[in-house]
């Protein structure tokens, strides 16, 4: 047994040397993010009536499915609200960190042939795996301690030392469970990508199991999931330690199982053999557009589902929002100032703006591909064959255009379908549709901008994303930071009529369309004239 792990401590030091910036970045970034949100909760949750309305909002089944069950609703202090809103997402972040940490130092190294070099030295057969697991152990421990300490230093109402420690160690234990799950995935699959994919798939399954367990009577489902177990600590409310102990036991069993499996496979192989792919391309993979679709379809579809569900989640709280805002003068002053309209109606345009801006992320990354395909040396294969520049740029432009037209429909449907189920006073579908589609010309300006950047300033495409970031700031965050109104006029989205608060006036929309068309036209001319970007 000892021989199997010979050299593990050396390898741990080697991993720490290789990841000397990566691990601190993960740990500091995650703990800082978690700790920094405590004052935000403390400030937003004024004591009294507002808190119980907030708890009621969180008890809505859609919210429970999203973030987990509410504990301590009777006295919904900062700690209880924080744990309710944050714990599930924190566990997910920590799980992702562990998945990447383990795959990077086992399967990825194996694929690159580095494990073979290590194995040729006097080290044990399980040393690589053991070293990755040991590193994960210390990384999780460090994260737990830093987070506990940070939470305690910035503690809000109801956050005592034992609660802060329990929060940190719930993350520690769940992180180890996912390190174990990933270790096993690495033994089963034959390459890094499938191992990562399998581990992330298990993470998603665990999230869904927890969601199902939390909103139905079958609570046992939640207990099968480390995410569900973490929330059962009822941290800052009842502070139960048993879920942490259960997770530690699970992690130990998973790790031992991974050792057992690791000895039953060869280097570079998986216990489940890789499936052969298709021998021939399908009919659709015959044109630049077919290829572009193949490369972007997964992202486009995942975002389509995500936008629909996120809109639905927002809509699920339409009913409670009215009461919540009436009890929170700070938020009311920020978002709902017009007495002629209901709270929901005042929110529709802003909610649509946020969703549209989110939806622009996949649209714009699709357009960015024009340049990344060149840089990666892929475009050379197409343009070296009978493919014109027009077809190449047009393929991505067309996909972006279709996304820009379909996403608002999904967003409006998400709002309306879920909203009308939970809240009878939800406005009609046409209100949501008009409000969402009013933003489409502004999205087209962004599409034109990205096409023009790809054609004229291919190295500067990230500037386009900076502009999207500014747009998000000037449309949404500006209200919270209380900055002047003219800032939003610097972005196309700021010129869109705020339906239903404002009437739809065609003039600004036509101007936006004209700008978008001009940029696009220039882009198609410019793209024919420039050199293909090469590495």
């Amino acid at each position: 047994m000892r021989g199997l792990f010979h050299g593990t401590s050396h390898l741990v030091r080697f991993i720490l040397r290789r990841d000397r910036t990566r691990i601190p970045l993960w740990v500091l970034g995650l703990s800082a993010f978690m700790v920094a949100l405590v004052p935000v909760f403390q400030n937003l949750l004024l004591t009294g009536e507002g808190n119980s309305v907030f708890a009621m909002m969180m008890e809505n089944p859609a919210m429970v499915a999203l973030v987990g069950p509410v504990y301590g609703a009777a006295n919904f202090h900062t700690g209880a609200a924080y744990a309710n809103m944050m714990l599930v997402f924190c566990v997910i972040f920590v799980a992702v960190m562990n998945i990447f940490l383990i795959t990077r130092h086992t399967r990825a190294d194996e694929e690159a042939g580095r494990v073979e070099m290590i194995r040729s030295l006097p080290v044990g057969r399980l040393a690589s795996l053991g070293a990755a697991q040991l590193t994960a152990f210390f990384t999780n421990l460090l994260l737990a301690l830093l987070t506990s300490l940070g939470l305690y230093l910035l503690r809000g109402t109801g956050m005592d030392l034992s609660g802060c420690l329990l929060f940190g160690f719930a993350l520690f234990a769940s992180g180890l469970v996912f390190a174990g799950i990933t270790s096993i995935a690495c033994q089963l699959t034959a390459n890094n990508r499938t191992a990562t994919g399998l581990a992330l798939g298990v993470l998603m399954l665990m999230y869904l199991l927890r969601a199902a367990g939390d909103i139905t009577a079958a609570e046992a489902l939640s207990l099968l999931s480390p995410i569900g177990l973490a929330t059962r600590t009822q941290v800052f409310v009842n502070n139960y330690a048993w879920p942490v102990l259960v997770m530690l036991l699970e992690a130990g069993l998973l790790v031992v199982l991974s050792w057992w499996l690791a000895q039953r496979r060869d280097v570079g192989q998986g216990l489940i053999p890789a499936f052969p792919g298709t021998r021939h391309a399908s009919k659709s993979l015959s044109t630049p557009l077919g290829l572009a679709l193949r490369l972007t379809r997964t992202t486009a579809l995942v975002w389509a589902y995500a936008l629909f569900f996120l809109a639905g989640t927002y809509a699920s709280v339409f009913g409670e929002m009215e009461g919540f805002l009436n009890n929170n003068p700070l938020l009311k002053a920020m978002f709902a100032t017009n007495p002629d309209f209901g709270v929901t109606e005042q929110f529709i345009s802003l909610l649509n703006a946020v969703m549209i801006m989110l939806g622009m992320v996949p649209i714009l990354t699709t357009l960015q591909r024009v340049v990344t395909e060149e840089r990666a040396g892929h475009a050379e294969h197409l343009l070296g064959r009978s493919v014109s520049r027009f077809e190449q740029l047009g393929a991505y432009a067309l996909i972006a255009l279709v996304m820009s037209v379909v996403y608002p429909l999904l967003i409006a449907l998400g709002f309306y379908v879920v909203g009308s189920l939970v809240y009878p006073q939800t406005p009609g579908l046409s209100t949501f549709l008009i409000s969402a589609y009013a933003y489409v010309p502004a999205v087209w300006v962004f599409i034109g901008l990205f096409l023009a950047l790809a054609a004229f300033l291919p190295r500067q495409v990230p500037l386009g994303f900076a502009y999207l970031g500014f747009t998000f700031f000037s449309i949404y965050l500006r209200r919270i930071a209380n900055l002047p109104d003219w800032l939003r006029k610097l972005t196309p989205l700021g010129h869109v009529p705020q339906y239903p608060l404002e009437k739809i006036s065609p003039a600004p929309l036509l101007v936006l369309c004209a700008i978008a068309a001009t940029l696009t036209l220039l882009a198609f001319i410019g793209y024919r004239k420039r050199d293909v970007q090469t590495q």
Partner: protein
Amino acid sequence: MQVLHLDKVTKTFGQLKALDQVTLSVAPGEVYGFIGPNGAGKTTAIRVLMGILQATNGRATLFGQDAWQHAVELHKRVAYVPGEVNLWPNLTGGEVIDLFVRLRRGSKTRYEDELLERFDLDPTKKCRTYSKGNRQKVALVAAFASDADLYILDEPTSGLDPLMEEVFQQCVAEVKAQGKSVLLSSHILSEVEKLCDKVSIIRQGHIIESGSLQELRHLTRTFVSAKTARPVPSLADNPHVHDLSQQGDSLSFSVEVPHLGEVLSLLHQHGINSLECMPPTLEQLFMSHYEREG
């Protein structure tokens, strides 16, 4: 009409002059070697020919038509293998080959399966799992499976093992036998020596020598080693003899090719017991150019 012609092509990237007045032509049925070290401008010249880069000055033509203006039409007659073959990680090799053949929009693939077998390539694997050599094989199979008139191959064998290099050479010989033209860039000189009718040597964006291998060899020296019955004292004074070394009765030296006859007759006067003459290899040709240019 030339199949491929670069006429005083200059290409600059900002301050950097990657190609300086490069002139090169390939006639129908010719296999043309394009040699030079990495960074000399081979890939840039080829990209100009493929309409991927636009020449700053000068003209690049394929089949008499402008390579930039008419790229799409011209590429139906050209098969191209880029120097660095990067493929889409989540497509299989077979899918990529099909896509490439379809995108040429030229005539249909003829013996793709045979080529896959000869190159020993598994087309059902995802490109992410392919080594550099296997990615090159994908591009080569797609190129040789297409019925083109001109094959432009940019260092196509840099990732192949010797066995596969052999297969590649057969493929080039086959298309040559069909009367097709090939432009082969390489820094593997033995390969160029074996396959090419004509050669251009490029260095720092300049063509420094062009011609058939025969012609180029005239510019260099032949290496001679011999054993003579009696010592040859006058050899040391001959201005056309270089690198002379004498050990007992064995001699070795290099001699300028035009003066080979007169030096050999000098040896003959002293009684030749054994004699070996070696023509310069492309390596030596190459090195001598580099030395001369400093």
